[in-house]
């Protein structure tokens, strides 16, 4: 009996590690028609936990392996990229050279730009004058603008926009952020700002002799209609004069 008990204990102990389920074999050896052995809930819970832990650990190890692989790949790519660029010293030198060239090129560019500015000035003056007048003004201005563009030698084609990197540098960004902060603090939603018309019309309202608001008539009402009328009038007068002659 002692041997059997020891054996049973040993067998039970061995089997507890993976999943302490009662082996029907041992019990059936002794009493086949007895009720199955009661397994206490704690034991079963421990068994389930252990299994879960094992699976979890396996998954973790798998994930770690993948991470390792990915990291190694990343390092490899960075290495390759670095190898592609020139060494830093050479890059620095090139940048300095570029700056020197820019500085010397700029006055030369300015001089060239100013000499060719006569064409632009004429176009500007004529454009202003035409604005005051004739019906073909729109087309003419456009044609002249196109001419102006062509003379500058820029080629814009397609739907991309070429920007000078100097304007979008880090200092520009800092400055823009600072200005935005200032604007938000002074003119933001909490600052209780009001339109100039309303502000200055208060005095007119409180006067003993009440007057109209400062901007009673908004000059921008019907602006395009007025411009069209103006152009029509000039064109009509021109035709009248022509017919009269």
């Amino acid at each position, binding site marked *: 009996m002692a041997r059997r008990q020891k054996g049973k204990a040993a067998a039970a102990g061995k089997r507890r590690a993976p999943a302490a389920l009662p082996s029907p074999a041992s019990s059936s050896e002794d009493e086949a028609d007895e009720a199955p052995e009661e397994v206490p809930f704690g034991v079963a819970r421990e068994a389930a936990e252990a299994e879960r832990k094992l699976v979890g650990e396996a998954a973790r190890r798998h994930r770690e392996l993948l991470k390792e692989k990915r990291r190694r790949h990343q390092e490899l790519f960075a290495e390759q990229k670095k190898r592609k660029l020139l060494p830093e010293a050479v890059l620095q030198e090139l940048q300095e050279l570029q700056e020197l060239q820019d500085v010397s090129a700029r006055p030369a560019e300015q001089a060239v*730009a*100013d*000499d060719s*500015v*006569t064409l632009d*000035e*004429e176009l*500007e*003056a*004529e454009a*202003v*004058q035409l604005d*005051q007048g004739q019906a073909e003004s729109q087309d003419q201005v456009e044609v002249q603008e196109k001419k102006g563009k062509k003379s500058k030698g820029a080629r814009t084609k397609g739907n991309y926009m070429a920007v000078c990197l100097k304007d979008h540098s880090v*200092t520009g960004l*800092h*400055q823009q*952020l*600072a*200005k935005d*902060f200032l604007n938000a*603090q*002074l*003119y933001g939603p*909490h*600052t*209780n*700002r*009001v*339109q*100039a*018309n*309303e*502000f*200055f019309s*208060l005095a007119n*309202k*409180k006067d003993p002799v009440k007057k109209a608001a*400062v*901007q009673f008539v908004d000059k921008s009402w019907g602006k395009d209609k007025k411009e069209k009328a103006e152009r029509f009038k000039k064109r009509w007068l021109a035709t009248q004069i022509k017919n009269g002659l």
Partner: protein
Amino acid sequence: MGEFEVHRVRFFGLVPAGVRCLACHPRGSRLALARTDGAVEVYNFAANYFQEKVIPGHELRTVESLCWAAGDRLFGAGLSGDITEYDLSGLSAARGVDGGGGPIWSMVANSTGTQLAIGCEDGSVKIFQVVPGGIQFERNLDRRKGRVLCLSWHPSDTHIVAGSIDFFRVIDVTSGQTVQRIMVNHHVEKAKRECVVWAISLLSSGTVVSADSFGRVQFWDWEQGTLAESHTVSTSAALSLAVSEKEDSIIVGTSTGATYQLQLLPVTLGGQEKRWVRTKPFQFHSHDVRAVAHSPTALISGGLDAQLVIRPLMEKIQKKSYDAALRKFTFPHRRLVSCARKARLLLFQFSQYLELWRLGSTEETGKDGEVLPLCQMPEHLVQLKSKGPEHIYCSCVSPCGTWVGYSTASRFHLYRVHCDGDGVSLRKVPKVPKLLPPAYQLQFSADSDSLFVASARGSVHVFQLLEPGGCKHLHTLRPPSGCSEAVYLLAPSADGHWLAAVSGDWVSAVVPSVHCPLLQHHCTVPTYNCAVSALAIHPSTNNLVIAYSDQQLLEFSIPEKQYTSWSRAVQSRGLHRAWLERDSPITHITFNPKNPSHILLHDTYLLCVLDKSLPLPDDSTLLMNQSTLKQLPETARKRQLHAFKICKKFQPLLFMDLLDENCLVVVERPIMDFKTQLPLPVQQKKFGT
């Protein structure tokens, strides 16, 4: 006064830029002012608050703070991250050093003027040393997160207080470490928005005064870290703060345009304990007051409505004189309009472009005060934009109306104008000689044959204008020795023989404008202790009439090289008190060719026809007597006539000129016309509206 047909011009769309920073010179009586467009101006208090120097702005340059250091050197710093030194004799932004911390929000000099501290966007406070050639980086003080919006040195230079968002900190200068950090928003419950400390000051008693965006002025004991007093001066933000030298008076500027004075007064009469009390409220501005300064005798404030207001403190004024009057300046003290008399053209100078207009005409006549209908409307001929980011220094149109010239800080441009029938064309004159430095003042000669260009150190270049469109440098007129500043006013004579020039150190010289190796320089007008605000040479008698900024008028005879007898009579009699107590200087003098005894002058609020043949008024008679004279009968009028015939109908005046015998042009700029174009003001709630 005579009957004139007046062209009343109100289409000059000038919008002056708002005042952003003020800096009082520590010793002297000068005030440096920076505007939102980057222009820097220097006002001389001793010369009746005359705007003696103007440095035009730059598109990329914003000035966030100005300070005087090392005597007479002026430094400015802005959001571009550079510290610029302004060359006041050369009228340009001379050297720039990158601060190295991003946009610079504030800059202050220590009490001896040897070091500059700057507060940057990245939260660092840097110290620069002021050396003879420029400035040199010394070291970085402790850096914390949060942009440093305001700085102040302790009068003994041991500590610096730096104001930021929601807190301010006190830094020990020798060790560079932050010794105290005080949260400003701690007392406000349920603070929904951050509290920005806009201005801060460290007093010698160890009290820190802060002005924040909740409209509070708070007094802190920084060593204990406690709040001693808190005054809520406004519902909107308190934007600027200035402490007097004696530290018993503070001026605070707010977003609503109101300024307040706080004074340190004893609690009981004759007692020892003193407390800060809000004493005087002022409402001089309609827009935000972003700059204030406290001089020993006056409170100075500058707002975004482009006004500079100087309010003298009555208790500091010794004697009762016009010094105690409130002064307000909106428009510049120099001419921005040039007129081509024969062609009836006006050239308007803006900061980045010029506009050429032709005046309208009328064929009717009418009675005094009538508005005549125009048969031809005034025409906007050309708008000439200046190339490059620099603002325009000066501009001029020739009397015949065919040449237009303007100058920026680096280049000088000349154009030829062709008016053929309906169209106007502008052609640039090529190969204009490059001058270094370029023009501070341009003036065409009366016959439009030559161009005078005022340059540095008192010299004037003479260019000959060639048909059909060219110019050649003839010679350079050099001043008498000892003239170190640039010429800012020029006046050629009508016969083309003489040229009068005034330089920044107030030396007026008359030189022959035709090159003559024997007669290099004719004579110098005796120096006066005030700046010249306008000068002109009479066409027939060749008398030089000079108007000074303290409202004195002098007439100097060029052929005789001495003051005329009329001028001596005026000086011995003294000018009328109402004339001397005017607020703005005379900016233009002109003459009537048909009537040699008439001088026409104008300042911002009046235009005057001075008749030398009539007697001078004394203090007992009324100066502005035109309206009373109109009602008197002929005989009584003759008895009461005096030399000053003043008209105050056209205000504020930017320019006035005589086109021909009975035709005047006046250029006005009503203040309400540009106030609606300024940034938005803060709402004022009034009962019943």
